[in-house]
């Protein structure tokens, strides 16, 4: 029997991002950006992000859901093109999923959100807006100045007066 109904119950590790070594430097750079993008990695530690439990052939089969929700390499994301919308949806959904996963028996909900997580992580990673990046950066820039100033005064054995 072919198709999704032929699959067995399984749990496993989500496929890693394929190596892009043969592609252009630009795409490598893009991949690095994706790999480095921390919002999703902070929200979901690797063991939580990478593992899924799927039921074979059922509505909650992770691969079926992945297809439905667009976490398929050949399909376009249903929320693609509206990154802010994707970001908003994913944050609320994933935040909810974190709470739900505290209950190990809640496989149904986990199976439901797992493919969404894949889709939304792509949205978060790939379409972070410049404003969001600068929103992260500006407090850091201000913090650097504060730390350097404090460090210059506190790290010196001498009395330092800064103008």
């Amino acid at each position, binding site marked *: 029997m072919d198709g999704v109904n032929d699959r067995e119950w399984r749990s496993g590790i989500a496929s890693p991002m394929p190596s892009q070594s043969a592609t252009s430097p630009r795409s490598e750079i893009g991949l690095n*950006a994706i790999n480095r993008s921390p919002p999703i990695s902070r929200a979901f530690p690797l063991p939580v992000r990478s593992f899924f439990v799927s039921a074979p052939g059922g509505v909650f089969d992770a691969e079926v859901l992945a297809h439905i929700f667009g976490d398929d390499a050949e399909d376009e994301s249903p929320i693609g093109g509206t990154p802010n919308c994707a970001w908003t949806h994913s944050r609320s959904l994933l935040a909810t999923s974190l709470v739900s996963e505290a209950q190990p028996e809640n496989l149904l909900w986990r199976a439901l959100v797992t493919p969404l997580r894949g889709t939304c992580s792509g949205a978060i990673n790939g379409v972070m807006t410049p404003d969001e*990046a600068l929103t992260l950066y500006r407090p850091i820039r201000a913090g650097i100045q504060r730390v350097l100033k404090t460090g210059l005064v506190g790290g010196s054995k001498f009395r330092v007066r800064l103008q």
Partner: protein
Amino acid sequence: MVSDLALFEPNQRGTRAYDRFLGDHADTLEPGDVDLAHQMAGARFSILRVLGSHDLAGVWVEDVINGGEPIWVLDEGLEVSAPDGVEFAMRIFDAGDFYAGFGIVVPADPEVTDFCGQAVSRGNRLPVRHSLAAALYADAIWDEWMRLEEEHASRPRRAAPVMSCDEPSPVHGPSGAALRRRRSYI
């Protein structure tokens, strides 16, 4: 520049003032800055080459001396002013989402970049007297002084004021072209 060197360059015993500060006076930092301060402890000074603009903000750079993967440096000034391929030196640290600099960017002489790259590839120490940062900061200050001197020399002179013998005459160094080669390298 002086502050940067004072905090982040190790002394003869290999210790940094910044580490001493983090160890002894970290409580003087604002609570929200403590994590950032520890991230900043991992800062490194290196020569970087701009690969291109990042899609969001800042630039992609590669470490010319140490190699490695391209680095996303989020710096609005660099994004605006640094063309692709330009080489510069700055102290950067991993801020989590991206790398951030301390705001001091100095040009990197291609000759120096080449020498440093060769030295590192052969496992030798960098061909600088004290530290790469100190050498490049000194160059930057020296070049700026030369530029100002040349600007000053090219201005049309007014009639020379009458000066008494007691007044010091304006001091002009040798020509900038000759002095530009005076570097702080070994």
